[in-house]
């Protein structure tokens, strides 16, 4: 039971680390494309790690109902497909409209 708690804590800590790093990248990067680069990967992996840790918690603590976290497994699958697709659609929209990429020496925008 204790080893399960340790595994769940490690998964949650990894997910929170990636989530906070994605938010800091969204604040700190100077451009639209670099902000999408920061958030498109960190957010997907962070949410996936948090949901995986929660699935492991359910399998250790509520072992009588093993069919409830199947929904969360579907949610992880959906996020890993849908979130990069949404990021790609946004980046393509910005490129078609004509958002200029940031170069060294430019002003932050």
């Amino acid at each position, binding site marked *: 039971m204790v080893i399960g*708690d340790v595994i*769940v*804590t490690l998964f*949650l800590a990894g*997910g*929170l680390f990636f*989530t*906070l790093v*994605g*938010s*800091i990248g*969204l*604040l700190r990067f100077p451009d*639209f494309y670099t*902000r*999408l680069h920061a*958030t498109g990967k960190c*957010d*997907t992996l*962070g*949410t996936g790690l*948090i*949901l995986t840790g*929660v699935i492991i*918690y*359910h399998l250790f*603590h509520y072992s009588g109902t093993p069919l*409830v976290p199947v*929904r*969360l497994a*579907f*949610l992880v699958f*959906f*996020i890993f497909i*849908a*979130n990069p*697709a*949404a*990021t790609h*659609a*946004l980046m*393509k*929209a*910005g490129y*078609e*409209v004509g*958002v200029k990429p940031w170069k060294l020496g430019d002003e932050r*925008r």
Partner: protein
Amino acid sequence: MISIFLISSMLIIFAIFLSLYRATVGPGVFNRTVAVNVIGTKTIGLLVLIGYYTERPEFFDIALLYAMLNFIGTLVFARYLERGELWS
């Protein structure tokens, strides 16, 4: 063990507030759309953690619905920004 979900929820809410800065003052409509998409993705994890903290598995259905609505909304908004119209 149940209190780690509370701490994780508080840290996710802190990350959401960090993203909310970019959603309110971020220059241009593209930065705001990115921030809204990021907030929606973080809210999925927050809903699942709240569902385990209060021991109510109804929140998982809300998280599934929220993921689908966030994805469809971002796609529709990107298409609108790209073409200027939705149906053509």
